[in-house]
């Protein structure tokens, strides 16, 4: 079975004022139909940029600043590189083939229109549906999402709804044209924990019903474990480790993943001295990456003379696991 989405050597650079920022550097991954993959990393590691790049919304215009290939299998069956599509063709892809939901359900809805209007407009953008037909499917969508009193919700303005409700509405808009891929960019970050759980359950249920794939972007490992089977960990614009969630979580190979997991509070493992271990130092500025491995200044396994000189490549450690570390074999042992 061929992949739904194939990203190859995706590089995104933001240049301006004499500065070049490598937001995403040579990222490659596949996404199978119906699969959920979680993209994890700290703020500024480039995970959201990957989502925007797939949507063609990075805003990068200069030649050479956006390279690589993003091959998507369309619902009709043909495969196309999204990077080569015209603006107009891309508009037909957005919403229709790939949809996206954002972190801020508060500001993702237009304050001057009713919820029903916004869902209907999303539908009529792509389908020549009549107004009443679009209204009907909007109502159906909200009911499918388990929104109580869907009729009233359609007539409401965004400010009249709670954060969880608004995120449900965003999901309804995203799903209105039945995309085969949903990019969820931290969709639960702005919500409180009980609502987070409801939204995750909702996404899982909708995925089971529609068979869409989800690229789930988050910095929350708990959410990763909840929703995804496979995860990719990013650091400084690169994928540093990828594999099945259970394996990556239980036996992290890349010191960064390990440090991240160690810095999570856990009930079964009280931290010595009552303090959580933190990763020392700061995320390097993407415009001034350290030589060698980007993580070595903060890594407790770093060897002078090795990690600060050679740039590690992504290595396969077994058939489904990749890691970017020069010393992973020693560390794993």
């Amino acid at each position, binding site marked *: 079975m061929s992949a739904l989405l194939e990203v190859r050597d995706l590089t995104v650079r933001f240049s301006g004022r004499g500065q070049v920022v490598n937001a995403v550097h040579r990222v490659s991954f596949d996404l199978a139909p119906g699969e959920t993959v979680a993209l994890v990393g700290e703020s500024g590691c480039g995970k959201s940029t990957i989502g925007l790049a797939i*949507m063609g*919304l990075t805003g990068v215009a200069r030649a050479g600043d956006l390279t690589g290939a993003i091959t998507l299998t369309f619902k009709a069956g043909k495969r196309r590189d999204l990077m080569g599509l015209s603006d*107009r063709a891309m*508009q*037909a*892809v*957005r*919403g*229709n083939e790939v*949809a*996206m939901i*954002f972190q*801020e359900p508060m*500001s*993702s*809805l*237009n*304050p*001057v*229109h009713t919820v029903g209007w916004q869902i209907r*407009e*999303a539908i009529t*953008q*792509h389908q020549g549906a009549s107004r009443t037909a679009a209204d009907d499917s909007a109502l159906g969508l909200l009911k499918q999402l388990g929104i109580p009193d869907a009729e009233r919700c359609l007539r409401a303005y965004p400010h009249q709804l709670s954060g969880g409700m608004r995120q449900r509405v*965003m999901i309804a*808009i*995203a799903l*209105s*044209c039945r995309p085969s891929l949903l990019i969820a960019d931290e969709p639960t970050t702005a919500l409180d924990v009980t609502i987070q759980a409801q939204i995750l359950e909702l996404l899982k249920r909708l995925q089971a019903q529609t068979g869409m794939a989800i690229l789930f972007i988050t910095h929350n490992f708990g959410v990763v474990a909840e929703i995804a089977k496979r995860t990719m960990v990013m650091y400084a614009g690169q994928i540093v480790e990828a594999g099945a969630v259970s394996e990556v979580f239980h036996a992290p190979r890349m010191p960064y993943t390990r440090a991240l997991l160690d810095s999570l509070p856990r009930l079964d493992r009280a931290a010595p001295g009552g303090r959580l271990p933190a990763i020392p130092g700061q995320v390097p500025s993407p415009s001034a990456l350290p030589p060698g491995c980007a993580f070595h200044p903060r890594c407790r396994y770093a060897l002078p003379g090795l990690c600060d000189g050679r740039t590690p490549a992504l290595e396969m450690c077994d058939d489904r696991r990749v890691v970017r570390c020069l010393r992973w074999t020693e560390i794993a042992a």
Partner: protein
Amino acid sequence: MILTPRRIVGLALIALALACAALADVIAPHDPLRSSVAFLSPPSAAHALGTDELGRDVLSRVIHGARTSLVIGFGAAVVAMAIGAPVGLFAGYFGGRVDVVTVVLIDLFVSLPGLVLALVITVMVGPSLQNLALVLGFVMWPGVARLVRGQVLAIREATFIEAARAVGGTPAWIISRHVWPNTMRVAAAQFAVSVSFAIFTSSSLSFLGLGIPPPTPDWGGMVRTGYDFLAINPLLSLGPGAAVTVTVLGFYLVGSSVE
């Protein structure tokens, strides 16, 4: 719209002007165009503000003058909006070179005093009701464009615009359905300010002799004629002058109450 004292006063003054314009035939005690032999008569029961140099009732002319002023005011504001709003939306949304050129053009226009510009163009095209509305609209569009552009710059960065792109929205759809409705509040305020500016400026032009050709009742022109007879009956000038003040103030109060 929340009714603040400022807006209530403004709306009341606008309502007064609109009522005069709409009901002029009913409430004006005399025909504004009919002259009589009672030239320059002082205020009396029959002529509350007296009569002018041709024996016409000044009060009736002031009431009918509201029509002229409001037609010019609204006409000019519509023209300014029709040019300025699309330019501002376009420049603000797309940015880049289009934006730079537009801003330079706007600054060029704004740096010229509106009255002088209107004066020069009116001399060229000749004064008439239609021309005055067009000329004043043309003078005012950069102000509208600048304001709308500023709003668009803030709105286009909002997440809901990105979300609109993410559902596959075309630029035309995003601008008309998502950006424009969010600028409308400020655009409406600017519309009211434009009406007040247009009435004020057209009255000024009339006062300078470039207004509506006689015998149509027109406030600016009436102030000018009355000026010659100030010693005999100051109400000849003060009546229409007060009408200009009240109308301009009404629109300005409402327009400036937003931000």
